[in-house]
């Protein structure tokens, strides 16, 4: 980075500029529903311990793999644990990992990508480092991190994020490569805007639309990868319910007890659908050219 923004006003402007909505923008009913769904899922997950009927860890070997019943609304898993309690509790860790991985990789990738895309000199070096990072398998990294740090959420998030960052970087950079040739960037240079300001205020908004797509994808895939990692022994303990875990554990029982995959899968899909809808709305709101009449 060459310089920090020249005054506190520009920092202020970054915030207001980025998040103020174009005049007349209104939010439709779809995104409202999405927000409500998301809120419900988040609350349901966070508050799960208060209302789920069973301890999600307590087992009963004699009632394994039971179909849904009065006692177990969604049936039980191969350990005889209550699926409903596990699915509802599972959201806590899953959402944390999904959102954590998405936010971290997008944030880090965005910064690096902006710099790589804009400064020709930096591009080569940064992108070659990214190429190298991309090649490190998440599993290996996770195993190493767990060995160093012990198993923890942050190890998992880092292990998922590190290979994801270069992909975000490439995406951001590609958008910036085109956008930096726009005359309004020249105009900003001519107006004496500092490099950070040009990067953040002029170029960054161009990356939002693709980043929203990439971000939701990372969020979903992190939740699924988490399960793979934990089954390869590098994630959170398999005992602790997460949507990914529950699905991965249900994998072999796919043909005889699809509910083990269906319910956590449904929760995950709902979340992703909601995040997607919100993302789309955010992107439409941030792009004045997309301003739409109420539909």
């Amino acid at each position, binding site marked *: 980075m*060459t*310089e920090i923004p*020249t*005054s506190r*006003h*520009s920092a*202020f*402007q970054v915030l207001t*500029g980025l998040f103020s909505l*174009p*005049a007349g923008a209104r939010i439709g009913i779809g995104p409202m529903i999405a927000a409500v769904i998301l809120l419900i899922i988040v609350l349901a997950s966070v508050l799960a311990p208060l209302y789920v009927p069973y301890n999600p860890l307590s087992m009963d070997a004699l009632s394994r793999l039971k179909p849904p019943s009065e006692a177990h609304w969604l049936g039980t898993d191969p350990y005889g644990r209550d699926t409903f309690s596990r699915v509802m509790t599972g959201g806590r860790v899953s959402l944390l990992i999904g959102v954590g991985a998405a936010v971290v990789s997008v944030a880090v990738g965005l910064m690096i990508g902006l710099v790589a895309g804009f400064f020709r000199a930096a591009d080569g070096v940064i992108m070659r480092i990214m190429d190298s990072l991309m090649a490190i398998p998440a599993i290996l990294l996770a195993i190493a991190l767990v060995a160093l740090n012990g198993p923890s959420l942050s190890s998992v998030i880092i292990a998922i994020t590190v290979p994801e960052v270069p992909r975000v970087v490439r995406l951001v950079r590609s958008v910036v490569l085109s956008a930096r*040739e*726009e*005359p*309004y960037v*020249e*105009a*900003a*240079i*001519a*107006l*004496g*805007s*500092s*490099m950070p*300001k040009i990067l953040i205020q*002029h170029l960054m*908004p161009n990356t939002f639309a693709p980043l929203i797509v990439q971000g939701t994808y990372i969020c979903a895939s992190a939740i699924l990868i988490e399960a793979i990692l934990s089954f390869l022994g590098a994630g959170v303990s398999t005992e602790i319910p997460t949507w990914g875990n529950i699905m991965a554990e249900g994998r072999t029982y796919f043909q005889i007890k699809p509910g083990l995959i269906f319910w956590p899968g449904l929760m995950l899909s709902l979340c992703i659908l909601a995040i997607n809808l919100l993302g789309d709305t955010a992107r439409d709101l*941030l*792009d*004045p*050219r*997309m*301003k*739409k*009449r*109420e539909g």
Partner: protein
Amino acid sequence: MEFKSKDFTDSRRVLKIRKLKVGLTGRPNAAPVLNEIDLDIRAGETHCLVGESGSGKSVTSLAVMGLLPKDALEIQGGLIDLEGVEITYAKPSVMRALRARRIAMIFQEPMTALNPVLRVGEQIEEVLNMHTDLSQAEAKKRTLDMMEQVHLPDVDRIYQAFPHQLSGGQRQRIMIAMALILDPDLLIADEPTTALDVTTQLQILRLIAEMQERHGTAVLFITHDMGVVAEIADTVSVMQKGRIVERAPIRDLLTNPQEDYTKKLLMAVPNLAPRAARAPATAKDVIIVKGLDMTYGGGGFLRRSEGVKAARDVNFTIKPGRTLGIVGESGSGKSTVARCIMRLIDPTAGKVSVAGTEIAQLSRRQLQPYRKHLQIVFQDPYRSLNPRWTVARSLCEGPINFGTSKEEAMDKAAELMELVDLPRDALDRYPHQFSGGQRQRIAIARAVAMKPDLLVADEAVSALDVSVQAQVLDLLDDIQDKFGVAMLFITHDLRVAAQICDEVLVMQKGLVVEHGPADEVLSNPRHDYTRTLIEAAPGRHWDFANFRAMERVPALKGATA
């Protein structure tokens, strides 16, 4: 002065517009953008649409093409009839069949109107591929031929070029070629010659006239250049605030305008007679350009192609408070020079010193403090405004960069908006919600807000109607007086050049062919090119402000004609 005076009442009516009303989408109660427009154009007729910038000229033409941005503007009433086909609410497929063959349009801003990632040749050729059965080779030949006809130089190179590799005028001619190539029945030309030097402009106008002769094309010609209107119009409509306020045959309009607005407009047309040079300033030069060379590197996959020598050995200096005009052929390197001295591109050779410092070799970062001294109004204002930013934010960007507080910058911005004759509420709007001329004014306001030592204005007033243009030129004059701003003024409009330049520099093919005080150069041109240029100035036989012919045509000293 000769006016066209053919009577078209018997000709086939090509376009009929009745009570056309266009308003903001979904807001039928807001003030309409077009308010009950009536318009008729007959085969072979040239109908000129003039009027205030932002009065709805472009919107009218887009409505006819069926290309209104449907998220923002919609037809709220009235009727558009093209040769008996009612197209107001026509299906897309119907419109598609009509376009290019029957109606073609030249868009106002060629930079944004051309696809940045397709070669311009292909973009023209596409029209042929879509609407004719010509073979690949024939289509290419037609295309190259058309490019020659619009007087593009070096057509083989330009055919292969991408829009960003062309000069403003070259792009505009690509647009023109695209629209003319199929001899449409109705041609809508939205300020097609703003970026063209007068000689080229003359040739283009002739080309259109020939087509009208040959094919009976009806032409709707939107322009601010009264000289052009005087030369080519059969009838003229004057627009103001979304209405057509006056319609008349050209002679009647020029000699006997009815409406106040029309009179005001005509009276604002500047004179071709150069202003008296201001007293030579004694202060140090604001900018010194020495031996500036710029060659655009040719890419080429394996071997480097030769590249385009866009500027060669350009030298000049400007003192505070004075204006240097650059006129010349389209594609002669004017914008290149401007961009070089702004250090937006790196000159291949030469020296540029600003405020005593050599900046041609400074790095981007080292340059940053000097940015305050130099400002530019780009030739394509639309693209130079961030589409995601409100006008207010764009206007405040520069001052805030150099330490002005946000509130102060906002106040200043509001003030400037008034000075360039834009409503205050425009501050909260986005660039795409403005007309071409309005955007140009925003760009000017943005540059002026910086109170630079040197203002580079590249075709800065070309999209403005003459009354607003006069106002903006006054504004520039004002700040020049007040702050001693030096100005580099690139223009094709010799009237404007005559109005405000102290010195003029004439460029052709990258070279400076003539350089001297404005009255010298304009009234006593020494170089042949300068002379042809001045002779080609449209409407120089008419004294618009006084509604009559020139008493004394400003003869060129030593001219043979």
